[in-house]
C-alpha cells in the first residue's frame, strides 16, 4: 500500500440554500480527488435550507455512495464554528478541508494543498488570494480596495504570518482544527482570522497555496457598512486580546 493511501481527507461543506451549487461542487470534488487518488469523504452540513438542498444531497449520496457523501444536517442556521465542530465529530479522515460550497473555491487546488502540506508537514495550509498567482474574479475596484485595505490593517496590527486571513479555503490536520475551533469565539470574517491568529499563538505551522476566488455571488451579497464595522470591531478585539 502506498504511504499516501493511509491519509484520508474529510471535506466539510456547510450549506445554506445551495441547491444549485451543491451538485456542482460535489462533482468537482469527486473529479479532482478521483484523479489524484487520495482517499476522501464529503460531509454536507445543511442548516435546514428551505430550498431543498438536503434533498439534492440525498440524491448525490445515491449516485456517489454513502461512504463518500455523508449527510449531517442541522435544523436551523447555527453558524460556521458549530458547523465545523459538528462536522469534525463525524469525520473519519485525519485531515479536514474547509471551503465554501458556492463554487468560489475550486477543488482543482486540492492536490496542491495536499502536496504543500506534505512538503512541510504543515499543521494548516491556507489558500491565499493575495500571493503568487492567487487572485479574484468578479470584484470591482471598490471591493478590491476594501479587501486590500482591510488586509493591510490586519497585517500591521496583528502581524499574523499569513497573507490572507479572511480566506476560508483551508486544509487542517484534524487535531489542529479541533483545538482551534474550541478556542475561537468570533463570528463571520473575524472567525477565520481568529483561527489563524490562535494557530500562531499555539505555534502551529502554516503553509500557503495561491488560489483563485471566483465570486459569482457579489452583487447579491453586500459588503456594506455593517460588515465593515463588525470587521473593525473584531479586528480591534483580536488586537487587544491576543
Amino acid at each position, binding site marked *: 500500500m502506498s504511504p499516501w493511501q493511509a491519509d484520508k481527507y474529510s471535506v466539510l461543506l456547510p450549506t445554506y440554500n445551495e*441547491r*444549485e451549487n451543491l*451538485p*456542482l461542487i460535489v*462533482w*468537482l470534488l469527486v473529479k479532482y480527488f478521483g484523479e489524484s487518488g487520495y482517499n476522501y469523504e464529503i460531509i454536507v452540513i445543511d442548516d435546514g435550507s428551505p430550498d431543498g438542498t438536503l434533498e*439534492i444531497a440525498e*440524491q*448525490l449520496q*445515491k*449516485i456517489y455512495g454513502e461512504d463518500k457523501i455523508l449527510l449531517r444536517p442541522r435544523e436551523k442556521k447555527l453558524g460556521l464554528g458549530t458547523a465545523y465542530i459538528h462536522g469534525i465529530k463525524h469525520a473519519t479522515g485525519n485531515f479536514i478541508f474547509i471551503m465554501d460550497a458556492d*463554487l468560489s473555491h*475550486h477543488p482543482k487546488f486540492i492536490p496542491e494543498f495536499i502536496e504543500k502540506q506534505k512538503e512541510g508537514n504543515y499543521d494548516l495550509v491556507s489558500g491565499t*488570494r*493575495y500571493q503568487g*498567482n*492567487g*487572485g*479574484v*474574479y*468578479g*470584484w470591482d*475596484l471598490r471591493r*478590491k*480596495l476594501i*479587501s*486590500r*485595505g482591510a*488586509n*493591510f490593517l490586519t497585517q*500591521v*496590527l*496583528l*502581524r499574523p504570518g499569513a497573507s490572507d486571513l479572511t480566506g476560508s479555503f483551508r486544509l487542517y490536520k484534524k487535531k489542529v482544527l479541533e483545538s482551534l475551533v474550541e478556542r475561537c469565539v468570533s463570528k463571520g470574517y473575524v472567525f477565520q482570522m481568529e483561527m489563524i491568529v490562535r494557530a500562531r499563538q499555539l505555534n502551529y505551522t502554516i503553509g500557503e497555496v495561491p488560489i*483563485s*476566488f*471566483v465570486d459569482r455571488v457579489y452583487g447579491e451579497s453586500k459588503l456594506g457598512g455593517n460588515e465593515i464595522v463588525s470587521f473593525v470591531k473584531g479586528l480591534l478585539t*483580536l*488586537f*487587544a*486580546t*491576543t
Partner: protein
Amino acid sequence: MTKLLEWLFGVSFVLVAWAVVSFDLLDLSLPQTYREVAWPMPLYLLVSFGCYSLATVGYRVATFNDCEEAAKELQEQIKEAKEDLRKKGLKM
C-alpha cells in the same frame, strides 16, 4: 503579551527616547543638531507611514490578479458537470 501591549511598549519607548533627546531631559549636552533632527521625528514617522500605507495598498489593488481564465474554466466545467449528473440520474 498582546499585540496591543507590544504596540504600547514600542510607542512608549520611541516617545521616551524622543523626549530625552529633544528636551535634553537627562542633561546629556547633546549637540544642537541631534535635537534639531529629533524634534520633528514623530511627525515625520507618522507621515512616512501614512505615505507607505497608501502606496502599498494602492500597489496591491493595482496588481490584484483578475482570474479571467478561472471564471471561464468554471463555466465550462459547470456545463460538463450538469450534463454528467443528468446522465447519472440527478433531478435538479
